[in-house]
């Protein structure tokens, strides 16, 4: 089965969580409503900055397009997840 491109907020949330921009809890769609706006916007901005996109903090078309590209499964932000505490 071909993996569906990222097109919804929930899919984007899971993507940002999977690659280290949001905490792992965001991967559970049931928790998605608990995400505060600042964390959400920061995560998008961080992804946009890393990917060399315009930093808008919004889930715009360009951002969704890049999220839909085939990619490596390793996190972009190693050490930002909940499995590793910040010193």
């Amino acid at each position, binding site marked *: 089965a071909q993996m569906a491109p990222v097109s919804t907020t929930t899919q984007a949330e899971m993507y940002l969580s999977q690659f280290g921009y949001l905490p792992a809890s965001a991967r559970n769609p049931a928790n998605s409503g608990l995400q505060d706006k600042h964390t959400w916007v920061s995560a998008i901005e961080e992804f946009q900055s890393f990917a060399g996109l315009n930093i808008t903090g919004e889930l715009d078309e360009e951002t969704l397009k890049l999220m839909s590209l085939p990619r*490596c499964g390793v996190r972009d932000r190693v050490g930002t997840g909940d499995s590793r505490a910040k010193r």
Partner: protein
Amino acid sequence: YALQGSRWRVKNLTYKISKYPKRLKRNDVDAEIARAFAVWSEDTDLTFTRKTSGPVHIEIKFVESEHGDGDPFDGQGGTLAHAFFPVFGGDAHFDDAELWTIGSPRGTNLFQVAAHEFGHSLGLSHSDQSSALMAPFYRGFEPVFKLDEDDKAAIQSLYGRKTNQYTPTNAYPPSTHRPSYTPPKVPLDDSICKDSKIDTLFNSAHGETFAFKGDKYYKLTTDSVEEGYPQLISKGWPGLPGNIDAAFTYKNGKTYFFKGTQYWRYQGSQMDGAYPKEISEGFTGIPDHLDAAMVWGGNGKIYFFKGSKFWRFDPAKRPPVKASYPKPISNWEGVPNNLDAALKYTNGYTYFFKGDKYYRFHDARFAVDTATPPFPRPTAHWWFGCKNTPSSTAVGDNQSNDEPFEPEMSERTGSGAGSYQLTSNS
């Protein structure tokens, strides 16, 4: 580039393909995987040997969906592969639901993805440079592959540059294989030997190292100062004054010089626009009258040092200096306050200079390196090739091949079993 924080202690690594893809011939896969490893051997002393059984460093598997590591693959598209950093074992897994291809614009190119994944297996994280192999997104088939400078700098920061002097093994090489030690030449103008305190040191975009002192500059060789130096700074960089506080060359290839409240930007030896400009305008959040500046190999970001404090500057971020800066230099274990210069040298190590001495910093341990002779060491002998400086005689007598003269020979990659380590006595 970004480093995860772990690396292999040995440079001779082994691998095994324990599960082949269903759509490709085994021989073809073997060849592509070997090519992918070779990407990382070209600029380092790393070697990769395929084994068909027994324990290996890096195990490679083509698998689908849930495959035992808790990170299931997602079918065609999306995630193509993942690999574990050295500290987690280095294994590389490829999603066998992908249409893996060799030398074809169809499907997903195995060689490109494997070379990327092995970067992770060796300790590299994702780079934010879109041209880098370690960028996370698949770019499509590229008929001609060339490793990006960003990737090259990353792998060399972990494993050093290629020496080509002998093939490293897990055993200590016999002493007869060591390159001969050539006494460094003394610079013709030996004023730097009498007073080796420098204003700044930096690498050019072409990898040359320059030391500035007063209104003169020295081009350094691997063991001393190149003949014909010192020369006037105003001759080498027209328009630039003497007594520079700090300098560095950024990844855009431009060199930045700082003095007092101003800075200058050069492309090679040409001023790159209307300079000087105020530091407060071009480097918001960075103070005037700096002590030192460098691009740190650990993360590629710019660090400024003044007095007992340092600032991290990331031009891609707004603001470029986080509110949590400045921080105390004591965070850099063993590095003194009131530095004169800081430099990421071409061997990947970071060096700090103060007065007539210098310190070598271990980026992964985040502390000044422990070595024989210990740091700090006299700059005059080790960097400028001067004789008869304090403690230089003892060093010369022992014919210690420690860098900067023989950087690769002195790589201390750990003391564990099978590690590749050379000391002045071994």
